[in-house]
């Protein structure tokens, strides 16, 4: 699957970004853009995504992560993620507060499931699912 980088509004700074539209849980009508962030360990998304896909986090202890020069409280749950017809289950941290316009896809729950090739000169990246 070849995915073009996403251009941003001028106010957000220069440079298109490698965003991937994912669905979470059984939700099929809401795509959440997430940055393919090769420097991230965990996969983190804003908390509204958990509410939207019906994930209950009430009894999950929060973990503190540093993001964007501040910190956030993440509550983890195993959820189904899917992109382009490929689905897998992995731990996702649902965060509040959340400073970014998108979620972050890290090694533990995203990169280990794909071979990801960035072609920055062409403003695109390619995903190939790894058969396990």
């Amino acid at each position, binding site marked *: *699957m*070849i*995915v*073009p*980088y*996403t*251009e*941003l*509004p*001028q*106010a*957000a*700074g220069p440079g*298109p*970004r490698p965003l*991937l*539209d994912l*669905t979470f849980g059984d939700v*099929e*009508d*809401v*795509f*959440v*853009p997430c*940055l393919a*962030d090769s*420097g*991230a*360990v*965990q996969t*983190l998304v*804003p908390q*509204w995504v958990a*509410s*939207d896909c019906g994930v209950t986090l009430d009894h999950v202890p929060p*973990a*503190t*992560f*540093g*993001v*964007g*020069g501040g910190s956030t409280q993440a509550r983890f749950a195993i959820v189904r993620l899917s*992109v*382009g017809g490929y689905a897998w289950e992995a731990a996702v*941290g649902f965060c509040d507060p959340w*400073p*970014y*316009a*998108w979620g*972050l896809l*890290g090694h533990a729950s995203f990169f280990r499931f794909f071979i990801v090739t960035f072609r920055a*000169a*062409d*403003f*695109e990246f390619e995903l190939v699912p790894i058969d396990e």
Partner: protein
Amino acid sequence: MTLATVAGHQYEFDASIVESELERVDPEPINEHYVVVRGRRFPPKQVLAVITGLDRADFTTHQARAILRRLGFGVHRRSQPADPGVASKSGRSAGGDSGLLDAHTGRWVAQAGSEILYAADDPESVTHWLRRHGRRARVWRVPADPGETGSALSSP
């Protein structure tokens, strides 16, 4: 002020009144034609129905477009159907969405391909709109400053 006869009734329309009447109206999905009112896109028949109180079966899209154009609003036709979710193509361009998003910085939007279907101040309003209209789209807050787009290491 614009005079027009619709379904046998004569109306006086004023652009500023149309704008204020639509302030609290959610745009419905665009099929082919749309009119831009204060940066939001509405189906022309939805707008004319709101400002006249008439049933949409009482007039045509052509009539609605003509009246709204005379009032000074931009009336357009969608170039192609929008594709929700992941784009999958190759090329050296990054898609050219920058201008599209500039008008919505800081707001939550439902984006399908190169079209903004709906914009609101919170994600719940956007997802409710999508489900009410049976649409699928990327839902996100369009970043308004570089602080919302920085990469980060997410280690404990």
